C-alpha cells in the first residue's frame, strides 16, 4: 500500500532513466517541451495571470466598471476590523473539525463490511451520494432538514420530538449540520478507497493478531490503523482538495451562509462581497486569504505525512 502516496508525489521521481546513447542524439530543443507547451501557456493565461491579477486587485477599490483604484492595505485592514469576517474565518476553521469524522466513518465502515457476504451491493449503494454533485446533496437536505421538514416531522411522529433540532436555522447547530451533510456526501467514496486498501493489505497480520487473542478494538487500532495509514493520508489529501477548497457549493445550496452568517465560510464570503455586493476589491482580498488558508492546511498535512514517515 506504499502506492497511495506515490500517486501524488510520483511525477518528479522517475525522470532521467534515459540511456546515454539516446541522450547524445537528442535535438537541441527537447520534443517534450512542445508537448507540455499548450498546457503551460493555457495555465499561465487562465490560472497564473488571474492569480497575479487577484493579488493586485486586493489592493484596489474596484467594482468591475470603473478602473481599479490603488488603495494599499485598506481592504485587508477593513477585513481585520470586521467582526463578522473573523467569524467567517472561524467557521471555515471549525468545518475542518469535520475531517476526522469524514475519515473515521468510512474507515470503520470499510473494515466492518470487508469480506462480509452480501456487502457488495451495500457498498455500491453507499457510493451513490459520491456521484451526486454537492449542489444536489445540499438541495436534498435543504428540503429534508427544514424546520417543519420531513425529518423533524418524522421524529415527532415516532415520539422522538426531543431530538428535533432547527438544523438549518439555529446558529449553534448549523455548522454541525453542514459537517454531517458533507459526511453523507463523501462517506461512500472513502469506503471505496479503504476497501481497495484492505484488498491489497496482508491478511496474515490480522490472522496472527486474532490468534494472539486481540479484541476487535485492538485489531482496529493496532493492526488496521497503521496498515491503512497510506490510504488515510491519500484520503485526507483528497478531502482537502475536493471539499475544503470548495465549501461553496455545499453552503450555497444548503444554508446560503445563514442564519445571520453563522455558516458563512471564507469562500461564501467571496461570493457575497464580489457578486452580491459588487465590491470586487474586498472580494479579491478575501480570495487571497482563502488561498493562504488552503496553503496552511496543505502544509499541515504534508508535515503530518513527513512526521509519520520518519516514525516508521
Amino acid at each position: 500500500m506504499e502506492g497511495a502516496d506515490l500517486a501524488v508525489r510520483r511525477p518528479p521521481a522517475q525522470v532521467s532513466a534515459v540511456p546515454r546513447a539516446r541522450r547524445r542524439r537528442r535535438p537541441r530543443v527537447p520534443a517534450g517541451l512542445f508537448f507540455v507547451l499548450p498546457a503551460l501557456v493555457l495555465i499561465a493565461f487562465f490560472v497564473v495571470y488571474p492569480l497575479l491579477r487577484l493579488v493586485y486587485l486586493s489592493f484596489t477599490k474596484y467594482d468591475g466598471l470603473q478602473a481599479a483604484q490603488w488603495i494599499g492595505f485598506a481592504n485587508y485592514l477593513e477585513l481585520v476590523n470586521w467582526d463578522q469576517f473573523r467569524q467567517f474565518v472561524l467557521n471555515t476553521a471549525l468545518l475542518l473539525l469535520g475531517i476526522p469524522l469524514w475519515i473515521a466513518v468510512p474507515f470503520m465502515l470499510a473494515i466492518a463490511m470487508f469480506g462480509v457476504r452480501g456487502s457488495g451491493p451495500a457498498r455500491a449503494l453507499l457510493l451513490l451520494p459520491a456521484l451526486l454533485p454537492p449542489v444536489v446533496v445540499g438541495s436534498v437536505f435543504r428540503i429534508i432538514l427544514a424546520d417543519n421538514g420531513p425529518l423533524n416531522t418524522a421524529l415527532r411522529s415516532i415520539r422522538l420530538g426531543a431530538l428535533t433540532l432547527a438544523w438549518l436555522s439555529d446558529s449553534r447547530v448549523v455548522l454541525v449540520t453542514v459537517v454531517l451533510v458533507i459526511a453523507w456526501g463523501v462517506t461512500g467514496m472513502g469506503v471505496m478507497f479503504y476497501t481497495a486498501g484492505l484488498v491489497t493489505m496482508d491478511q496474515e497480520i490480522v490472522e496472527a493478531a486474532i490468534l494472539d487473542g486481540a479484541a476487535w478494538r485492538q485489531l482496529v487500532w493496532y493492526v488496521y490503523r497503521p496498515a491503512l495509514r497510506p490510504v488515510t493520508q491519500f484520503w485526507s489529501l483528497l478531502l482537502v482538495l475536493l471539499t475544503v477548497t470548495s465549501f461553496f457549493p455545499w453552503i450555497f445550496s444548503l444554508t446560503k451562509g445563514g442564519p445571520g452568517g453563522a455558516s458563512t465560510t471564507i469562500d461564501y464570503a467571496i461570493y457575497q462581497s464580489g457578486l452580491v455586493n459588487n465590491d470586487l476589491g474586498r472580494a479579491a482580498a478575501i480570495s487571497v486569504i482563502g488561498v493562504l488558508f488552503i496553503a496552511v492546511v496543505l502544509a499541515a498535512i504534508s508535515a503530518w505525512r513527513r512526521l509519520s514517515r520518519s516514525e516508521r
Partner: protein
Amino acid sequence: MTTNSIMRAESTRLKVAIWLLITMSVAVVVVPLAWVIRLAFRPQSAYSGDPTGVGGGFTFDNIRAAWDAGIGSGLLTSALVVPLGAMIATVLATVTGYALAKENVPFKRTVTALIVGTIAVPLTSLAVPVFDQALQFGYLGSRPALAVVYGVLFTGWGVLFMTSYFSALPDELLEAARCDGAGRLRTMIAIALPISVPAMISIFVVNMFSMWSELIIGLIMLPTTSQQTAAVVLAQFATQYRSGGPVTAAAMLVMIFPMVIAFFVCQRWLKAEILGGAVKG
C-alpha cells in the same frame, strides 16, 4: 477475500452488530434519496396536505414545471459546455502527462509542480479574477469560453493521473517504435495514445462529472439567466422555492439524469482506472 476477520474472531453478538451497522448506513443513504425521488412525482396538492408522506398519486407535472422554470435550458447549456470542456481537459492531460512521464522536459520538477499545483487553488478564489479577465477580454457570457476555462482548470487532475499511468508503461514499447524510425510525435500518436484510450475515457468521464457539478465559475462566467448551466439553475431553484417543493425535487432529477446515464455507460472504465491510478499508484 475470505470472511471478515473481525467477525470470525468474535461472537455472534458482534455479527449482529455489524449487520445492524451496514443496514443502518445503507438506510441513511437510501431513504432520503428514495423520498426525494418520490417527492418529484407527487402532486402539488398531496404535498401541501402532507409534506412528509409519500402518498397521493403520481404525476409528471413537477418535471414539466421544473423544465419550464429553467432547468431545461440549463441542461442544454451544460450539454454544450461540459463535453467540450472535458475533451479539452482530457487532451491536454494526456499529451502533458505523456511528456512528463516519457519525454525529456526542461525543468521537469517545476513544470510538474506548476501544472499539478493548480488543483490546490480554490476555484472560488479564482472567481473574481476570472470574471474580471472575461470582462477585459470580452468573453463574459460566452459558452465556448467557459468550456475552455473549465478545460484548463481541470487539467491538473488529469495530468496527475496520466503521468502515473504513462510511467507504468514499459519504455521498451516506445524504444521499439523509435528504432523503427518513428519520430517523437509519431511514437506518441501511433503507440502511446492507442494504448491509453481506456485511461483517456475514464478521465474524460471524471471531468464530465466535475464540470457538470461545478458551480461558482459557471455562475460568474454566464450571467444571463437563460444561459446558465444546470448546476447554477438548480442551486438557485433550491433557494427560490423556499419551502422546497416537489418542483425542486423534479429539477434535481432532471439535472442528474444525464450523469446517471453516463455513469452506467462508463462504469467499467471508471472502477478499474481510477482505483488503479489513485490507490495502487
